[in-house]
């Protein structure tokens, strides 16, 4: 990593192109994410959200494309499914690949409110708890960049609200740059510093969110941002 890391962007994407069968899924995309910045990425299905996230995560081998891409060395990914190894206990899942950093793992589980469940099997946990373990697994690595691909998409509405509060708390504590892919406009506005809208592989809209915390949908400013974003997504309300 560059020595003056705090002065440069954490993520730099220039003219990124990714093609599947000669169809450009990402079409000359530019994106910068500052250190500690929380960016939410909205878009219809097929707009290239996941392709961008996979490109940043380095999971797009065998995909045709061009462009410049600079990401930090230490990147963590949270998937839509918790993706815990079912044959490893919760703590072992958290410290997977960290060579016995059990104390850090325990602290991390405590942070997500799962102290005491270290020796449980993933199958014994609820969906929300599993996703909290996945968050602990990501944050115990102290990532400079956290990539999250619809991490709350499979959770019920109440659990999702609790997870929003938890994610904000964790991001405040660890200060990673975040790119959150979501299809939920409200979730994007509640969580992010900046929301970008992707369509046909390009960024078509961008909103910096400066609403005071805690952000509430009852706020008139919230409603204004939401209607502009929905417009950009091609949804007329």
């Amino acid at each position, binding site marked *: 990593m560059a020595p003056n890391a705090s002065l440069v962007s954490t993520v730099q994407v220039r003219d990124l192109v990714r093609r599947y069968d000669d169809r450009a899924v990402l079409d000359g995309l530019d994106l910068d994410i500052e250190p500690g910045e929380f960016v939410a990425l909205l878009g219809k299905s097929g707009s290239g959200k996941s392709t961008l996230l996979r490109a940043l995560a*380095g999971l797009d081998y065998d995909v045709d494309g061009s462009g410049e891409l600079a990401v930090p060395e230490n*990147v963590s990914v949270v998937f839509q499914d918790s993706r815990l190894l*079912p044959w490893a206990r919760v703590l072992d899942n958290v410290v*997977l690949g960290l060579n016995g950093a059990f104390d850090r793992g325990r602290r991390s589980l405590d942070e997500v409110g799962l102290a005491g469940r270290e020796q449980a*099997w993933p199958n014994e946990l609820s969906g929300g708890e599993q996703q909290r373990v996945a968050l602990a697994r990501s944050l115990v*690595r102290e990532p400079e960049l956290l990539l999250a691909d619809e991490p709350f998409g499979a959770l019920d509405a109440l659990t999702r609200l609790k997870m929003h509060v938890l994610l904000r708390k964790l991001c405040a504590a660890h200060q990673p740059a975040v790119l959150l892919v979501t299809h939920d406009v409200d979730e994007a506005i509640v969580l992010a510093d900046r929301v970008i809208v992707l369509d046909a592989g390009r960024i078509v809209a961008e909103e910096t969110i400066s609403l005071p915390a805690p952000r509430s949908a009852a706020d008139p400013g919230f409603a204004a941002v939401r209607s502009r974003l929905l417009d950009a997504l091609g949804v007329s309300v």
Partner: protein
Amino acid sequence: MSATTLPGLRSREAAARPVVRRRRLGPGKPIRFGAAIGPVLLLAIWSIGSATGWIDQRVLSAPWTVVTTAADLIADGRLQSNLWTSAQRALIGLALGIVLGVVLALISGLSRLGEAVLDGPIQIKRAIPSLALLPLLILWLGIGESMKIVTILLGVFIPIYIHTHNGLRTIDSRYVELAQTVGLSQWEFIRRVVLPGALPGFLLGLRFAVTGAWLSLVVVEQINSTSGIGYMMELARTYGQTDIIIVGLVVYGALGLLSDAVVRLIQRRALSWRRTLAS
């Protein structure tokens, strides 16, 4: 939920018309010690048949004759020494077969080149019953111990290979992706993801392998053997001693049941993360 636990609507309805308890479909409650009833009944018929003389002693010895014969065989040490020889053959063949099956499955499961070279021949071997290879094995290895152990080994390594290989290849690709994002090395990937992921397949293969080992043992011990349970039974056949033959059958049956129980115990221990799903 049963109808009687819904108080409001149901009870008012019941006042007008008594709730008819439906007859439960399906076989109903399990019977206590149900598994023992069939064998005990069989034993009773056998005993009565022998006592009344319906069953000719030359065709089938009486149960008590079998018991006293077993006691005699144990007293003069023949049963133990033959059992020991048989168990040794089965265990050595099983152990070598497991090692061979696992090694081949790992080579062909983890490398495309390995699969290209190994999988075809093994599938061809699978189509040939191990026992059909006996004439060739006798010509190559003679009628000694190595022929017997190799025959058992050939019967054992196929199910181990097939199920372990299948276990390796059906590991969810999402876990492979996870391993990459958390930066696992090749060795850590094998240790943390591949081996535990293939374990259920391996253990299933092991259950087939254990049964296969006893099956092969029975056959090889009846070909020119001079020791083992199979030899003891072959010898008894030439003298028409049905009691000794039945002692041998009981021993084979007990060994089969016991070894399957051991493998299932290992399975339950090793896959305890799965039991939480079943319970």
